[in-house]
Structures are given as structure tokens and as C-alpha cells.
């Protein structure tokens, strides 16, 4: 089982910890090219997620992910709420009814999450958004699995790619989100959404 309840909960707990630790950093990134609240918002959202998950009982991974999605929409401000919310809802929907989640199912769920963000945000890669971390991460995950890597190593490759993708947003021009209002002044700053996405993916495999 590639994504049982326990591993999903562990990931979410690590994510909440990292987002709390990094809230100032994320907010600083967002101050440079946004409305200076991304770190505060993500911390608030994942704190609410942890509270909600305390009552989840023995819900399956699909239900947990959908619960995370709904919680994030209600508690994370800015575009991150609807975008991350949609991502988790779509991932949860992709795993619905699956009792023995395999790596291929995780890939499908991750893919559904990305498609959800693209649809909700009307965005694609190259526009200085979270997709610039998540897209390369999914590519790396698939490539590693195709090359016969075990699932843990494949997830590490995804986390590495997400971090590289986040850094790669630095020279990009923002054409989406609040940063797009800055025009060329958005160049030279790392995108906060790509950064928090990379943090979430790193949390899958630890620190």
C-alpha cells in the first residue's frame, strides 16, 4: 500500500509543522510580490487541518484528502485556499473507493490535483506559480518509477524537482495572481506558492 491512512496523516502532520516553522519566510516571499500573507494563510490552514483530522477516525486516504481540501478552502486566504483546496479535493476524488493504494494510484491522484489547479487557476507551467514546482515534481515521480526506482526514492526525486522548480521561478515574469499586478517587478523573486508546494512535497519524504 503506497498511501495508507497512517502515511497520509504523517505527511500532513509534517506539512503542518514545516508550514508553521516557515511561515515568516513564506510571508516575506509574498511581501515581495504579493499581499504578504501566504505564510500566515498556509499556517492557519494546516493548523485547522490538524484540528479537523483529530476527528477523522479510520477514514480512508481519499476521505482524508477531501477533508483537507474542504478545510483549506475555508481557512486559507488568497488564491492558495481555492487552489490547494481544489488540488486536495481532486486528489481525494481520484483515490475514492481504492482500498489498496498503489504508486500508480498516487501518480493519478497527483495528476488530478495538478489538473484541478490548472483548471481553477486557469494557469499552466511557466507563469510563475505553484505549477512550476508541482509539474516538474510529477514528471520526476513518473520518470523515477518508469526507471524502476522504488517508491520512496521516486518521491524523493519528486521533492528535489519541486525545490528546483520553485527556485526556477525566480527569473520568471508573473502573469497570474497578485504578483501579475507587479509586472516586471515580479522578476527576481521566488514564487511563494511554488515554495510552499515544494515544502509540502519534501514533507512527504521527511525533511
Amino acid at each position, binding site marked *: 500500500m503506497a498511501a495508507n491512512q497512517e502515511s497520509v496523516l504523517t505527511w500532513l502532520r509534517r506539512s503542518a509543522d514545516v508550514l508553521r516553522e516557515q511561515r515568516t519566510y513564506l510571508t516575506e516571499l509574498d511581501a515581495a510580490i504579493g499581499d504578504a500573507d501566504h505564510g500566515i494563510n498556509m499556517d492557519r490552514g494546516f493548523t485547522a487541518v490538524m484540528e479537523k483530522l483529530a476527528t477523522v477516525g479510520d477514514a480512508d486516504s481519499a476521505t482524508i484528502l477531501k477533508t483537507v481540501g474542504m478545510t483549506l478552502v*475555508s*481557512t486559507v486566504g488568497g488564491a492558495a*485556499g481555492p487552489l490547494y483546496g481544489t488540488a486536495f479535493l481532486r486528489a481525494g476524488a481520484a483515490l475514492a473507493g481504492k482500498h489498496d493504494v498503489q504508486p500508480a494510484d498516487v501518480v493519478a491522484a497527483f495528476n488530478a490535483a495538478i489538473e484541478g489547479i490548472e483548471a*481553477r487557476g486557469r494557469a499552466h507551467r511557466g507563469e510563475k506559480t505553484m505549477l512550476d514546482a508541482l509539474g516538474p515534481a510529477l514528471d520526476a515521480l513518473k520518470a523515477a518509477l518508469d526507471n524502476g526506482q522504488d517508491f520512496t526514492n521516486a518521491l524523493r526525486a519528486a521533492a528535489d524537482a519541486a525545490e528546483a522548480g520553485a527556485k526556477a521561478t525566480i527569473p520568471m515574469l508573473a502573469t497570474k495572481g*497578485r504578483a501579475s499586478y507587479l509586472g516586471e517587478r515580479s522578476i527576481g523573486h521566488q514564487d511563494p506558492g511554488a515554495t510552499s508546494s515544494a515544502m509540502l512535497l519534501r514533507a512527504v519524504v521527511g525533511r
Partner: protein
Amino acid sequence: MAVGIVIVSHSARLAEGIVELAEQMAHGAARIIAAGGAADGSLGTSLEKVQQAIQSADTGDGVLILMDLGSAAMVAEMSVEQLPPEQRARVMLSNAPVVEGAVLAAVEASIGSPLEIVAETAQGAAGMSKLHDGK
């Protein structure tokens, strides 16, 4: 009964202010509901506020939703997606600039126009000029 109007803004005060302006044109003949700010009143948007506003605005003739910035549109979209199909069919999102669009929509709604006409009129705000020489 008339088309209802919902104003979604990151700012509660901005949404309320736009409602005030629009109500001046509607003379009480249409419901114009503010859905601004996050749940705790800080800057941001709230799915629940938008959902509640839609229910308050809808008298059966449908609702036009106006929004300030992109993320308000995302939250508004998600609210509409969660409506029962029958109601969803009579709720529209407007791409119009929020202030001018609200005022135009209020006029059209107050004379009993159907949702499609209210939406079309509001969209006309996109081309409006404030300055006399049109530039």
C-alpha cells in the same frame, strides 16, 4: 422578484460600500448582498460568506455575482459549483469591473430584467470611460 446581486470582495468594507452605491440605483427593488472579507473579517475571501450571500440574493430569479480580484472569482466559482443543479443554472459570474458592474446590474435588476440581460448590461462596464475625452 428580481435578479439578486452578490458582491464578492477581499474587503468587507469595500463590498458593503459597493452595495451602498448599487442600492442607490436599485431603490429597494433588488437584493444586493455583500460577501466581503475572510470569515474573521480580515482581508480575504470566504466560501461560506459567498454561499450565504447567494442564498440571500436568490428569490428564484437568479443571481449575478461580481468580484474584485482573481482569487475572489475562484471562491465564487467554487461556491457556484456546490449549488444544487437547479439553482446553479440560475447563478452567473460576471467578468465586469466590480463597482461599475454592480451599479449597472442594480439598475437592470431593479426594472425586472432577466439574469442574462442583467449580466450583459453589467459587462458593458468593461468599456466605460470616466473621463470626458474617453481616453
